[in-house]
């Protein structure tokens, strides 16, 4: 396996205008243009998308799941950020 292989790309599809691009999977392609064409063929055979993003997998930087506790701790201990933290009398109506 000393031959050069096509790099891996991560594929993101916008299923219709108004919605976010969403990760759907990955594929190998020689370059970005081919990645988009292949993504059309494998991830959009049944009108699943109106827009495609392709990103080299090697370019994605991800958080470490082992550090998840520390990373998300600040969000967990600030319950006053949630609307349900505040008691508003029923008479006030929906707020």
């Amino acid at each position, binding site marked *: 396996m000393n031959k050069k292989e*096509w790099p891996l790309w991560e594929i993101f599809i916008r299923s219709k205008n108004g919605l976010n691009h969403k990760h759907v*999977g*990955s594929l*190998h392609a*020689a370059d970005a243009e081919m990645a988009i064409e292949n993504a059309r063929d*494998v991830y959009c*055979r*049944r009108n699943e998308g109106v827009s495609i993003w392709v990103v080299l997998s090697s370019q994605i930087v991800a958080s470490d*799941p082992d550090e998840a506790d520390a990373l998300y701790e600040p969000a967990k201990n600030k319950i006053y950020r949630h609307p349900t933290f505040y008691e508003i009398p029923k008479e006030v109506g929906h707020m």
Partner: protein
Amino acid sequence: MLSNEQLEKEFQAKIDAEIKIEPKDWMPDAYRKTLIRQISQHAHSEVVGMLPEGNWITRAPSLRSKVILLAKVQDEAGHGLYLYSAAETLGVDREELIEELHTGKAKYSSIFNYPTLTWADIGAIGWLVDGAAIANQVMLCRTSYGPYARAMVRICKEESFHQRQGYEIMMKMAQGTPEQRQMAQDALNRWWWPSLMMFGPPDDKSIHTAQSLKWKIKRQTNDELRQEFIDKTVKQAEFIGLTIPDPDLKWNEERQHYDYGPINWEEFYQVINGNGPCNRQRMRDRIKAHEEGAWVREAAIAYAEKKQAKKNAA
């Protein structure tokens, strides 16, 4: 640092709580290995599965059936890709997996080592082989490894078309001329038992089942899935007036399931071990396609590099 024992305990707790495992999460080596083996075998089956059907693309009886079969075979290639991608999230390389298939180290579903002799076989494959695959794949939509489960959801959405188009072929032939009817029955006779074998050995002989159930890679046993498939399919055969080739097949009021005759497991192991009717032909065709496509892959890389160099110079 947590001990391995502690990590494994936390891992199992996540599985028990129905929390999916994602690529970068800690997982036991054996879980990773089991998944790589199972997902790559599944991918290989999709790819090799294109060969028996490809046999009929140029001989499809109408333009309608030809474009449908082309679309179906293209789907199988796509399914292979979703699965290879899922396997690659576990840290294996696509080329390594393909190498394992071509050297015979990795297996694929034994069903694809049977020949497609008539057009009715294309109907039988869609109806029975894809039907059996769907029973397995619906279960796998709930498997514990996230990327595998997501690939399965995509695949299941597409498989339903495959089974319906197969059943339509069988229905048309069963209602056609006496010769066509005979071809449909003959295809059912030949594909029925191999389809039942697709679910794998009986539970008491299946070496991987217990651990796979504990890890929730599988959610049902081979025998449970097999029974589910039989119960569904018998009625479909009756509806088009075809006879399931099993004299012991009988509704069991008490079990609320069909009883069925003994499966020839000797044949199953013979086919798995390379002695089916088409094993050598399938691997020969697969390797030929891969080798003859090598120059295309190399040319695409050379072209991409040239384009990049031009862009950098500009």
